[in-house]
């Protein structure tokens, strides 16, 4: 009898996977995001349709992608999916932490055909395999984004409104408006001080400080250099005359007290706190970086992008078509027990039905469809969608592959927020007024229309793969160090020219700039050749 008792429980533990059981994957996404609740509505619907779901884990406050992923590499234990930044992507590849997705995708056409063969070739590893899928680079038909997600000079709506919606074209005009507003409104009603201009300069986020010269000269966001389209040569954006003028302007504004004197000491969190206070009038930043921190700000303290150039006559090129960023993406790790199911999950997420669920919600509930197949939102649906709880309702799997631009039906935008009628209808009146003052209905229309990306674009996707094993990789690290050390001094320096000269001396003496630039030039030409 005792034997029977001992045996029975173990028998009860045996259970097989039921047909309708949901496979649950884990993931780590190296960005600051919001974790979905376990009973998220749309995630549940998607999981019931495709038989799988993924628990997304994001960076927590105080964590960095490097610290988290380094621990994973040391322990050898990973989540099923991982989406690192470009630096960590290389570390993961070197650690052999990712499985070659292309060995599994033959039965999954949504995934296999997500990129063209030429595009896939750009992200093949040295062994010829593809280990990750860039999530944000694929546009179906054409870009429909109404929001400028990239870098720009941003200014608060209240400043433009106060100034009578002036046409701002140059750097001087931009700071002129800020100066005047700050002079007129040094404090807010609550007594808090306004900050004319803020700079984020911590770690890799210091692009807000160091790369505006490329935009001021009318070039797109190659990030690490300017490319001469005629000679196909990379040009060091740090040392151009415009760069010097840019930092000189910052130096001037710093001295005037328009720029936050503490800006170079701030951590990213401290910077975001200041933006979230609503007291910062303007800054250079990328929308994706700060937008999540200012959602609660009133409309008048929201930011609109301005296409600032160094001199009139220069055509700004802030808005680009989605860059083909092959430096990172979501990969399946060696810790995944069911790689086939994981590949299927990626494939299923790219099906038209699931894409609609991810970016539009539930038909009939979150949106409606007219007889021509055009998606629209009733007032109730629009209000409901605006108020939808991102934790408990929506599920975008935003770091997993998707199509930007048009919906796969060729009729609608890929996301409800990008549907022109929906977007404009949902804007606050104050923002509508601002956009209308500039003849625009979307944020993107405040900037010049994007042009066809050059074959080499964007070059930052290349430098993001640099390591310290190469001269040009070492040069990049040295350049970063020098810029981190000297640029704040240049901006804060009493004597700009002296500071600039010290900076240039250090820059040229400590950095093998030629190795860096030559490598970029070679990459530009390689990409051009590959695109032919």
């Amino acid at each position, binding site marked *: *009898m005792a034997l*029977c*008792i001992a045996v*029975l*429980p173990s028998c009860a533990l045996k259970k097989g996977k039921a047909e309708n059981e949901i496979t649950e994957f884990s993931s780590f996404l190296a960005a600051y995001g919001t974790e979905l609740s376990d009973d998220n509505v749309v995630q549940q619907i998607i999981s019931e349709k495709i038989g799988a779901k993924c628990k997304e884990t994001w960076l*927590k*406050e*105080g964590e960095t992608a490097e610290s988290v992923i380094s621990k994973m590499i040391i322990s050898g234990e990973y989540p099923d999916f991982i989406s690192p930044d470009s630096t960590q992507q290389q570390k993961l590849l070197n650690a052999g932490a990712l499985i070659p997705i292309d060995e599994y995708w033959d039965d999954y056409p949504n995934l296999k055909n997500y990129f063209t063969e030429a595009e896939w070739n750009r992200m093949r590893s040295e062994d010829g395999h593809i280990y990750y899928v860039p999530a944000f680079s694929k546009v179906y038909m054409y870009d429909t984004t109404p929001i400028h997600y990239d870098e720009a000079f941003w200014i608060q709506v209240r400043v433009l409104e106060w100034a009578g919606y002036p046409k701002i074209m140059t750097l001087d005009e931009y700071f002129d408006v800020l100066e005047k507003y700050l002079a007129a409104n040094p404090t807010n009603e609550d007594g808090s001080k306004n900050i004319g201009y803020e700079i984020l300069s911590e770690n890799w986020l210091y692009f807000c400080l160091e790369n505006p010269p490329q935009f001021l000269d009318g070039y797109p966001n190659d990030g690490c250099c300017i490319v001469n389209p005629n000679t196909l040569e990379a040009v060091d954006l740090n040392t151009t005359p415009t760069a010097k003028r840019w930092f000189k302007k910052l130096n001037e504004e*710093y001295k005037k007290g328009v720029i936050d*004197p*503490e*800006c*170079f*000491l*701030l*951590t990213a969190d*401290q910077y975001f706190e200041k933006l979230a206070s609503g007291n910062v009038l303007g800054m250079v930043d990328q929308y994706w970086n700060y937008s999540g921190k200012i959602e609660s700000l009133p409309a008048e303290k929201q930011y609109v992008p301005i296409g600032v150039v160094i001199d009139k006559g220069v055509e700004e090129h802030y808005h680009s078509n989605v860059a083909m960023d092959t430096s990172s993406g979501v990969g399946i790790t060696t810790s995944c027990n069911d790689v086939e199911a994981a590949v299927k999950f990626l494939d299923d997420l790219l099906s038209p039905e699931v894409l609609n669920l991810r970016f539009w919600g539930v038909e009939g509930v979150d949106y409606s469809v007219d007889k021509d197949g055009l998606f629209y939102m009733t007032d109730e649906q629009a209000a409901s969608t605006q108020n939808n709880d991102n934790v408990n309702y929506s599920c975008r799997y935003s770091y997993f592959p998707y199509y930007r631009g048009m919906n796969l039906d060729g009729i609608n935008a890929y996301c409800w927020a990008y549907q022109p009628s929906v977007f404009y209808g949902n804007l606050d009146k104050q923002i509508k007024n601002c956009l209308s003052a500039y003849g625009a209905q979307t944020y993107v229309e405040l900037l010049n229309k994007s042009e066809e990306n050059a074959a080499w674009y964007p070059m930052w996707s290349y430098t993001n793969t640099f390591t310290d094993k190469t001269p040009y990789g070492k040069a990049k690290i040295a350049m970063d160090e020098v810029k*981190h*050390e000297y640029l*704040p*001094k240049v901006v*804060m*320096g*009493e004597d700009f020219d002296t*500071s600039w000269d010290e900076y240039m001396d250090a820059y040229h003496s400590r950095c093998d700039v030629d190795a860096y630039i030559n490598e970029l030039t070679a990459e530009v030409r390689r990409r051009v050749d590959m695109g032919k």
Partner: protein
Amino acid sequence: MPKSGFLSDIKFRTRLVFVCLLVLLPSLILIATILIILPISESARKKESEQTIMAASEQYISTAVENSVYIAKTAYTNKELYELINKKYKDAADYYTAYYEIKSSNPILTSENNSVSGIKIYSDNPTILSGGAISRMESVRGTEWYNTFSRLNKDMIFYCDSATGELSLLRKMDYYTVNTGDCILKIDLNGEILQECFKNLKFSGNIYVMNGGTLLFSNTGNSDDEINITSDYSCMIKNYYTVDIEYYSRADMEIGGMVSEWIIIPVTFLVIYAISVTMIIRLLKNVTDRVKHLNGVYDLDKGFCLKDSDLLCKDEVGALYRSCAELSEKLEQVENDDGRHIEQLNGCIYENNTLMLDALGIEAVLSSSDNARYLKFREEDIICPLDAELEKASDFAKTGVPDGKKLTVTVSADFEKIKSLSLPLLSVTMAVYDIVLCGFENNDEIALKIKADEGNGYCVISAGYGGNEISAGRLLKLRSIFEKEKSDDLWDFMPGYQYNPFIRLEKYYLENISAVFSSENGFEMRLTLPVDVMKPKKYDVKE
């Protein structure tokens, strides 16, 4: 042989009930004991669990506090930090240069970890800038923590923000002389990580870490308003550098859960008990069924007639059956021997009859000579008066009654008329005897009537009975006796029939006789004999 007592009188069914009860009772007592003890032990377990979880929780906080204390001690004696905050900077760039250098080289400012989310030094130095790990004191004057620290006037305190529930360690930086006013080190404990730890506690119940009514951490995610600390909570208070942290814990009474865990025992027991009882019933039923069956297979006449040999198993019942069967076979053998003896006896009788015929000297019969009637009969030996013959027939018929069967014989005749008639000795007697033998084949009881009457020169002698008919085959054989062509199996009719009385009569009366056999509602033999022949006379015997 074992003693037979009252136990031997208990039927199997009753025994079965006893066995089941004897198995069930101790187990029920055991289960009942468990169910009684369960709440008591669960209550003790609950208390122990609450103490354990509070100790574990305290360990989390204690580790975080000690970690912050360690960082504070290191920072407190770090000369570089004092140099940074003591220096008068000429401008922002000058300060940035100094800060950038110390940030790159001094690990104190970057020693944030899982336990510590923020390290900040507040200084009254007017030439520094707020940002990173250094901040101006003026920005925090008037805050609750600053006021508390100033009021307590201690070197180091632990502070809990009553609004946010954040825990911080505050340390006065005065190891080296500070010429730029007050300097305070503030180390914030990483509340998110700690909360995550509490959330992940595998504790079935509530654990709350509080400070003066402010909830700091819990494993439930409840807010302050949702918490109601009642008297059934276990409580522990620990002081960390001036701050009392209260730990409240209440484990869920998991009677339901434990019952669901423990229920496997009674359920398992019941299953096993049911299986056992079923097995016992089957075992006993197997015995009782076979015994009943064996009781039925004994026939008084046939003995043990077991058709299903499966019943002859190897157990005690099978052995008993085999013993009984053997005994039965022996009895049957004895019975058969008796039958054989009777048959032998009958054979002897027939043989005796034959011998007797021989003795009567009926050589003609044996020789089947057509001149038999002319054989010289010694009248006094072979011719018998009819009345005497009928009397003999009546007596002799009674000797042919098988065991268990019954025969009554009545003889009716006008003896005056027939007293002068005579016929061969035993001719009618043997015929009647044959009739009786045939009759008992299909009848258990025969009322035999023998009649004789004389008239018109013939004497009619009949013998018959009512009841079942004799078989057709038998009737045919009887009739065939008088047919010209004799049946080859005449001898098979009955042993001794070669001395058949009818043949003898036929021989004697030279075919002037008729014999009618009818079998309808019984059987009747009617012999018609010429009276003239029946008169006693002398016969010439052919030489």
